[in-house]
């Protein structure tokens, strides 16, 4: 690709004599700077209006320090810090939910989302300001990661390129014609609906952006904030053999259970089959009340008993 990896236009607060120079400068600045110091903890105290504005950077790019002037750009929530804890909380928690759903493959972005990789996102409990600090390091790590692996896996921006879901899903199931296409991972995406009992509306997620049950369950946890499957999902994925009592504990302990509808139209408990098999056959997800899901558990038990 002829375009420099860290291409940044947002930092241009003053008009420069020629666009060419300004873009190269910005790119160089972004590259040299690495992580923007505005991320660090010192800013927590300062109530800086500019810092609170949303900024937009593209995958792999870092916005340089802002010089001033409104409407310069939009930066992702991870960098805004406020002195009012109430404010931070609502901003932060909502942002986690909002953007981790908005950005496919949170883990692949160079920009910080709380925590390091997507897996870490699940590990973090509630929102709190302290997470900003590990985010700084994580961004740097991930940026290096991103630049090493960039040619193979492209970070995806929501809704870009602008292709309708129907076409995207059809592309994903088309057999690729050329040989060099076959080697790529993650081409296409697969949006499925997620419903939760009692929630007034559904959500949609792209299954291709997750690599494991842990990732998807933590993403869903954020999306549906009273959802507590995080423990259950990780438990299922991590253990090869389920003890009956353990699963029962999980089901009784957490209010909700994650289930999916497979190609045959049957409702299955998430976590039984290998991840790839799951993404191939999953048509939609449903977060069921644990009490409704009790009927599913015995089958799982029998399965693992027969596997033992």
């Amino acid at each position, binding site marked *: 690709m*002829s375009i420099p990896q860290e291409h940044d236009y947002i930092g241009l607060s003053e008009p420069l004599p020629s666009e060419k120079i300004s873009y190269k400068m910005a790119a160089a600045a972004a590259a040299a700077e690495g992580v923007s110091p505005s991320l660090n903890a010192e800013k927590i105290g300062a109530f800086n209006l500019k810092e609170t504005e949303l900024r937009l950077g593209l995958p792999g790019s870092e916005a340089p320090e802002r010089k001033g002037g409104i409407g310069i*750009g939009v930066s992702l929530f991870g960098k805004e810090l406020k002195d009012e804890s109430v404010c931070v909380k609502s901003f932060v928690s909502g942002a986690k939910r909002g953007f981790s759903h908005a950005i496919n493959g949170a883990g692949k972005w160079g920009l910080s989302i709380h925590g390091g990789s997507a897996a870490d996102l699940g590990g973090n409990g509630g929102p709190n300001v302290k997470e900003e600090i590990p985010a700084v390091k994580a961004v740097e790590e991930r940026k290096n990661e991103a630049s090493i692996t960039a040619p193979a896996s492209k970070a995806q921006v929501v809704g870009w390129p602008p292709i309708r879901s129907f076409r995207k899903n059809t592309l994903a199931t088309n057999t690729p014609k050329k040989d060099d296409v076959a080697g790529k991972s993650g081409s296409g995406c697969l949006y499925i609906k997620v419903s939760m009992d009692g929630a*007034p509306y559904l959500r949609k997620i792209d299954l291709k952006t997750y690599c494991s049950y842990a990732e998807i369950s933590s993403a869903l946890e954020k999306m549906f904030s009273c959802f507590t499957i995080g423990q259950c999902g990780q438990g299922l994925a991590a253990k090869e053999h389920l003890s009956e009592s353990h699963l029962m504990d999980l089901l009784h302990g957490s209010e909700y259970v994650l289930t999916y509808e497979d190609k045959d139209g049957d409702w299955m408990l998430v976590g039984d089959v290998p991840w790839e098999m799951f993404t191939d056959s999953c048509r939609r997800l449903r977060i069921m009340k644990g009490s409704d899901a009790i009927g599913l558990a015995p089958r799982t038990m029998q399965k693992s008993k027969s596997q033992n």
Partner: protein
Amino acid sequence: MAYSFPEEVLEHVFSFLSLARDRNAVSLVCKSWYEIERWCRHRIFVGNCYAVSPEIVIRRFPELRAVEMKGKPHFADFNLVPEGWGAYAYPWIAAMAEAYPFLEEIKLKRMVVTDESLELISKSYKNFKVLVLTSCEGFTTDGLASIAANCRHLRELDLRESEVEDLSGHWLSHFPDSCTSLVSLNMSCLGSEVSFSSLERLVARSPNLRTLRLNRAVPLEKLANLVRHAPQLVELGTGAYSSEIRSDTFSSLADAFSACKQLKALSGFWDVVPSYLPAVYSVCSGITSLNLSYAAIPSSDLVKLISQCQNLQRLWVLDYIEDSGLEALAASCKDLQELRVFPSDPFGAEPNVSLTEQGLVSVSEGCPKLESVLYFCRQMSNAALIAIARNRPNFIRFRLCIIEPQAADYLTLEPLDAGFGAIVENCKELRRLSMSGLLTDRVFKYIGTHAKKLEMLSIAFAGESDLGLHHVLSGCDSLRKLEIRDCPFGDKAVLANAAKLDTMRSLWMSSCSVSFGACKLLAQKMPRLNVEVIDERGPPDSRPESCVVERVYVYRTVASRQRLDMPDFVWTLDEDSSMRYS
């Protein structure tokens, strides 16, 4: 001296006016003309379902027979509008069920339609004829079964690209044997297999069938049977176009097609096996519309097919056609008016096919009637855009998507301002424009200066400052729809052009720099604009006013600004306490 024609005469005169624009003009002449016109208007188009309420429409137009409506903003197609935002059809369907027992047509786009709505439609309107659901969602095949079973005089059932929950293919079998009125059936978006014998019998007993678009599940071996029952077809969408190579299947198919003397449009072609393409050669000379955008066929096979279609006016194709194929297209299809080239591998990091800006340049050179373009590619240059603009000053729609956001001119590394500037300067009739690539405020200056007929503009990852947006809002006289994502446009431009927003259908801005304070101010200043703050981070009141909102959707409306179906992530101005958003 006052004079007037008798009402009946005026009504008769008005009956010759079909365009809504003309009828709207007529209704503004005087009160009596308004009254006469409203009683004889039978067809209505509502571009934004929230711009007006069912009650207002019903009160004004008591005799409607056809309603066409759009719901979600265009960017909902690309998942930028969170699920649950709105655009529910049910309130409209329910209100109209009472008010318009003779309603015949309902056409909805980007709305949420439930099975309940479909059942209500099927039972409320005795003479229901046309149902078109474009990019809708929320219903299942059970809803379709109601329509099939109860609409005795159904002529059109068109489910273009809707998201239907496919419970089974059984719905089709609900068409009663007495139903022979079908003119158009489009089920291409459905997944499940329908009963083939039901389908075959339905086609056989529908002598007026002109449009049949099958879904992928209909196998190629059975296609010939269907086509043989309907040689009068004008538009055909095949199912999967693949099968093991068998000469009897092929000859049967070729024979069936050769009987279709009126066929003008072909689509479908999922899973294509190129050896079966020649089966359609006999109809190619009459084909004016070809949709191969789901067909993964190498360029050479595409060219063989396309070069037979001398009268082609519309081509939708995947980028497998490559520059060489587009050159061949330019040489053989001189009547081409619309071209759409979709990416076969949009998320791959490297290009998988040899399709560049050159393909578009060739077509713009060779096809004098080309007026509408949607083109996905991976590189572009100002030189190419300038050439294209000079070749084709007759563009009406120009949508270019360079896959990498903010891609510069690959030859000079400059922004593509000059290129797009040339497009708007040369193409004086341009009504729709979508831009991509690296763009500064300069391109917006060109747009504001030249694009006087532009009605819809889509911008992404472009611009440098509020000045860009200001140029557009202050300069584009005909602008109706503006949608922007990920651009550094903010408060100043929006507030300075608040009055302009009243003349437009809608403005969408997501991931831009508009603050909550500005949204509030705009809503206070402009009582007939609904300023929806769509933000999933909790109440905007809980953050400083200077905080930027995730998304804002502004549209003019004569209905209430506090729509009753707002989800908890949408905030509008609270009319009672003017400083709060709730």
